[in-house]
């Protein structure tokens, strides 16, 4: 076991394994699953114009998000990652299974905190509300991103680079968590076995996260492991039927409105607040915060 975990791995192989899961899964899991969901919607007579327009808006937000991510990556992010790796890091860890597994664990934990932050501060919610604003729940919703969704994870993954992990490995692990998370956006799969539901984030747990029912607000932030929620007091099981969406519905499938409505709402809120300090506080206080 120790020998297996410490055996040196070649970069090319590691990148290939991640490529099979991170990139190719779109072809062999996500798209087939989405087709299955469309068939199910048709069977349940829920395949209507709203659903199609919602899915198209999801695709649009993903393209916009991806463009922002590429621009950020080219401009600075990769350079910052490498600079931190060379100058602000613990001794670099060798490339073996132990390093890969712990890197994915840390990326998953960072995802938890990134996600929790996006729910609990005004600026975070302005971008993440986009993901939650769909009233449907299928795999295309996983691709529904907001304008700052590419920025927040940087703050949470840089500490992992500082712990001695290779920046490329950290990025691959982050995408791994994101892809796992994508697979949870489905109504087709009910509850899985007890041990799985106890340890892992599942479609059931993530449906709760998307619920607008009051008891489901700000619960189940997990990426891969639900144990983070259990340990940090944000776990809620799926009991009542979930109503998807946000407390203040969007009622639009206009892709631009979908992508920017959170920023627009935050801007209007800040405009309505008196005093510079209050305006700034609106950025970092919880989304429902009002000055006393």
């Amino acid at each position, binding site marked *: 076991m120790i020998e297996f975990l410490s055996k040196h791995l070649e970069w090319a192989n590691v990148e290939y394994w991640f490529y099979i899961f991170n990139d190719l899964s779109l072809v062999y899991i996500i798209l087939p699953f989405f087709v299955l969901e469309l068939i199910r919607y048709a069977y349940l007579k829920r395949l209507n114009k709203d659903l199609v327009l919602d899915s198209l808006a999801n695709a649009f937000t993903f393209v916009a998000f991806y463009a922002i991510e590429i621009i950020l990556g080219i401009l600075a992010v990769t350079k910052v990652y490498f600079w931190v790796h060379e100058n602000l890091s613990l001794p670099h860890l*060798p490339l073996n299974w*132990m390093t890969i597994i712990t890197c994915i664990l840390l990326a998953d934990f960072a995802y938890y905190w990134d996600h929790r932050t996006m729910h609990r501060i005004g600026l975070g919610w302005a971008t993440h509300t986009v993901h939650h604003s769909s009233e449907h729940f299928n795999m295309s919703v996983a691709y529904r991103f907001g304008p700052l969704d590419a920025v927040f994870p940087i703050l949470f993954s840089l500490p992992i680079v500082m712990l001695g992990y290779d920046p490329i490995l950290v990025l691959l692990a982050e995408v791994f968590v994101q892809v796992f998370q994508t697979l949870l956006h489905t109504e087709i799969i009910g509850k899985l076995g007890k041990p799985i539901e106890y340890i892992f984030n599942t479609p059931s747990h993530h449906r709760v996260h998307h619920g607008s029912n009051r008891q489901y607000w700000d619960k189940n932030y997990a990426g891969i492991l639900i144990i983070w929620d259990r*340990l940090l007091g944000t776990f809620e099981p799926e009991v009542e039927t979930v109503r998807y969406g946000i407390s203040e519905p969007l009622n639009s499938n206009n892709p631009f409105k979908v992508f920017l409505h959170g920023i627009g709402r935050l801007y209007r809120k800040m405009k309505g607040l008196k005093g510079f300090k209050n305006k700034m506080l609106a950025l970092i206080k919880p989304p429902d915060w009002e000055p006393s």
Partner: protein
Amino acid sequence: MKNSTLFFRTLALVVFIAGGAHLFSYLSYDGEMVANGAAESQLEKEIITDEKEENMLVNDKTPEKDALPAKAVEVDKETLTGQWKVEYDTEDYKGSIVYRIKNESGKHKAYTHEYRDPAGNAQKAEGDLVLVIDRFEGETGKGTYTIEYEGKSYEIEAKLKRVNAKTFTLSYDYYGYGDTETWKKL
């Protein structure tokens, strides 16, 4: 949950996971060194190297260099940064060392990065500075190479020769202790 509880649980989890990875890499490195009966300093072994290998490496690699256009070499200077592997196959040490060359305010410096035994097992190195490249224009260059011998470290002059875009040789001669190493880019 109180903020302080959240903070300490989070800290504990991070320390546990990342600390585990570091402890594991440290211990498996240590264990292997003892198991292989290898001495603390791998560099020590480079010095006691037989001349046969030196000749072999030089003869083996030099014919390729003429094929390289001068312009390509200029561009490739920028690609010096990165990881380079050197194979050692002597009576005392078989395996390889991966060095990492960094560009530090215009100066290229190589640090030890990883030790690999012939079976492919790797252990991280301490990140010691071993080479400062003074210049490497065109096909030849010169640098300061640090070798350790019997507990003392010596800074000696080394000659660099570009073989191709992904290979260069480093040779030194220090009071009869000489070697030519072939550095291959990973």
